[in-house]
């Protein structure tokens, strides 16, 4: 029942996202044709005929009713057809997404998980040992949290990549050394390239987890069952983990899913700084080229993946917190 209700909610949310995605570009002005023209104009004069032929090429001439367009759009979605990208013309939006998504999942996914684990871990210890020197961590995480992502990233590139040469300056892997494949050299190289961007993501987003977990931990510590555990003579580590942290982590966990959306957002900026070939960087390209189809597609994918992550975490939550499993 719990699952069905959750699924229902996600269906509604997905529908809302899809519809929003459909409506935004139609509610607001702008034309991809002019964007393409602007690009071409950099290379040479653009004639009136060029304009017409691009319009024909992009198929922007429609005089269908809004409802009809909506149905077409939905039908297209079910076929996996998100339209044609202007930036990557004649590439399909879906193909562009398929190409860039793995990179983001790799970089952002990994660093989010690292951030979460580290933040929650340190937060749990900080909460457990409240009133010790660990409390001094809190203001510093607040600073880290409020530093603009890209500012930190640029400074890191300047310091660690350009000046010290410890890390590569940009990109997802060394194009001269390896090519994408599922083998050790590539993965090792890609990991090396992901280190610095990942570090900025971890640093600038760890504070929230740490603090949230610490506060939850402190609250949980005054619960009777933690006291009971102590009275039971359990070892402190066991009490901390199974009794305190196990309960304190639950709210963080649902926050984790929600924050995935924000992390993907953050990746837009980080990926831009590092020329990292993921969704965020592609999104920026789409924006700069007024590539509405691509923007829509990316937004949809980001939304849906956030939805999926939420759903997963929700289901996991049901598993971790028996109280939500059955109605009572």
């Amino acid at each position: 029942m719990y699952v069905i209700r959750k699924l229902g909610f996600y269906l509604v949310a997905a529908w809302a996202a899809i519809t929003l995605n459909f409506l935004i570009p139609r509610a607001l002005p702008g034309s991809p044709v002019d964007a393409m023209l602007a690009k071409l104009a950099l290379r040479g004069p653009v004639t009136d005929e060029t304009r017409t032929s691009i319009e024909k090429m992009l198929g922007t001439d429609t005089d269908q009713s809004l409802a009809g367009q909506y149905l077409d759009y939905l039908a297209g979605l079910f076929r996996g057809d998100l339209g044609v990208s202007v930036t990557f013309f004649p590439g399909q939006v879906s193909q562009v997404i398929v190409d860039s998504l793995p990179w983001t999942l790799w970089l952002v996914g990994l660093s989010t998980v690292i951030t979460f684990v580290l933040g929650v871990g340190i937060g749990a210890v900080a909460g457990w040992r409240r009133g010790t020197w660990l409390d001094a961590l809190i203001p510093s995480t607040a600073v880290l949290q409020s530093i603009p992502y890209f500012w930190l990233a640029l400074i890191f590139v300047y310091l660690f990549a350009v000046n010290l040469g410890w890390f590569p300056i940009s990109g997802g892997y060394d194009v001269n050394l390896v090519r994408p494949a599922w083998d050790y050299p590539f993965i090792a190289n890609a990991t090396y390239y992901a280190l610095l961007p990942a570090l900025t993501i971890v640093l600038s987003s760890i504070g929230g987890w740490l603090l949230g977990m610490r506060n939850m931990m402190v609250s949980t510590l005054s619960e009777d069952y933690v006291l009971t555990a102590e009275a039971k003579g359990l070892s402190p580590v066991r009490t901390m983990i199974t009794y305190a942290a196990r309960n304190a982590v639950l709210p963080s966990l649902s926050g984790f899913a929600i924050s995935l959306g924000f992390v993907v957002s953050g990746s837009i900026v980080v990926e831009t700084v590092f020329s990292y070939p993921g969704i965020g960087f592609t999104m920026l390209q789409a924006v700069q080229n007024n590539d509405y189809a691509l923007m829509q597609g990316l937004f949809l994918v980001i939304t849906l993946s956030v939805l999926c992550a939420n759903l997963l975490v929700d289901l996991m939550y049901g598993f971790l917190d028996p109280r939500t499993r059955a109605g009572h």
Partner: protein
Amino acid sequence: MSESQQAVLTVRDLSIDYLVAEPVRAVQSVSFDLFRGEILGLAGESGCGKTTLAYGLNQLHKPPAAITGGSVIFHDAETGRAVDVLALAGEKLRRFRWAKVSMVFQGAMNSLNPVISIRAQLADVFASHAPDLSREQRLRRSEELLELVGVDRRRISAFPHELSGGMRQRVMIAMALALDPQLMIMDEPTTALDVVVQREILDEILRLRQELGFAVIFITHDLPLLLEISDRIAVMRRGELVELATAEDLYFDPQHDYTATLLSSFPSLTGDAGDFVRAGYQERR
């Protein structure tokens, strides 16, 4: 119970303060002996320091609370040795807890970890104190314990929220009995329950005490209840122990004014209304 009996716990001049901006002297120079197999009732109004005292006996108090003086000696019947409880620390303290002194707290829902099963919480106790026990042995022992307190052994896989308040409290009692402790501290174990359930649980405790012979410190502010179940009753007020006597002495011959006030705060169910003034109005009418 006679005076000649052996003490299981000797508390001398125990003082506990909350070291906040204006320090609260929650327990002041409390001394008493607790005898083997005895039920000691601890009464007193809210905030008089009952819980603080109970926690101090097991070193469960947390900063800003601090023991500022006194001693707690536990006389271990198994080894025959006297243990200075306040000197215990670390691993020794951990081993002492629950094995010698177990506790049952007020809110059973809150005393049980809501996210892990009853089985795991019972098993925890054995895992920490009797690591030699095999899994099956642990399970068997846990089931026996549940049976002992009148809970169906099949409920062992249940999660706390799936049990009623009374059942949860029984589970807590079962857990408290797991290691055959010599002393069980119960801090308002039945306040959250309704009278009928409360009665069942009390009967259960009395029966088990009879069978197993552990001593009980029973904290509540329900004096009639204490009168019924305790051997001796201690009355606390503002951190001090103002009176300690057998239930009978206390009932028939309260020494302290405060004890008298407390006794008169409970109108008799079957007798007349006592201090309750409505009677006067009724007469007039």
